[in-house]
């Protein structure tokens, strides 16, 4: 159990870092939409619309690291599996 929790903690942290890097290493807050600007040729006004796009930020990383820390911490509640000695 202890080993499983540690593995899970590492997995959560690694997955979050990989996701964060793969989606553009956003160093701001997590966003769920992306700003799209379009130029109106007649008036010269830049129109703004939003397109759904998940872009995890540092809060996402922080939450993932906290979750990993909790899982690793929870692993301390369990003892190491001692090798069984069935020689008798």
């Amino acid at each position: 159990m202890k080993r499983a929790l540690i593995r899970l903690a590492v997995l959560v942290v690694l997955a979050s870092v990989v996701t964060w890097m793969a989606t553009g290493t956003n160093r701001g807050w997590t966003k769920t939409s992306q700003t799209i600007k379009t130029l109106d040729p007649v008036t010269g006004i830049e129109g703004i619309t939003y397109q759904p796009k998940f872009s995890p930020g540092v809060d996402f990383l922080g939450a993932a690291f906290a979750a990993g820390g909790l899982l690793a911490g929870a692993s301390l509640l369990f003892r190491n599996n001692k090798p069984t000695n069935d020689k008798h």
Partner: protein
Amino acid sequence: MKLNHLLLLTSLSISAYAAPQSFDFKDPKGVNNAIFKLDAPLESINGSASGITGTVSFDPENPAATTGKIVVASESLTVPNPMQKEHLHGANWLEVAKYPEITFEAKSLANVKTDGNATTADATGTFTLHGVSKDLTVPIKLTYLKDKLSARVPNLKGDLLVVRANFTINREDFNIQKGQYEDKVSPTIDLSLAIAGAAIAQ
């Protein structure tokens, strides 16, 4: 007698031409927008509002007489972070359910300079946000686009008026978290408006 008729017709046509036009800023193209920016330590909070309506009375022969009112639906304020948007609309910040409109009513223009179809001026009027009204003077640029409505909206003839304004307000002046979170969210808000209104030819 004929000369009198001619003079009368001429004066009537001049007065008809010189009459101020009413431009409607409800944009069928959905391009009109107001952008807001607040500095914050990690990342500035950038957002926009699209729910813009209002009318402006503009006389191309006398831009100094321009007056009007622009209304922004508070509910249309958007930021890309859903939690920030929820806070922005919520009871601690803009209270959009209680104060559904942000308005600017321009009453007079000063320092009016016209160059071709563009006019710059300082517009003085009443800005209302979060239920608080304050008199403000903001620099504006008006661009009159004669007969350009059909280029934007097919089957409609008329003129366009583009209004641009950039100015800064202090959120504390409008009772928005007065004296609170100044280390996290800037007390000043940069506003940028770029909107086009249409006057349909009769």
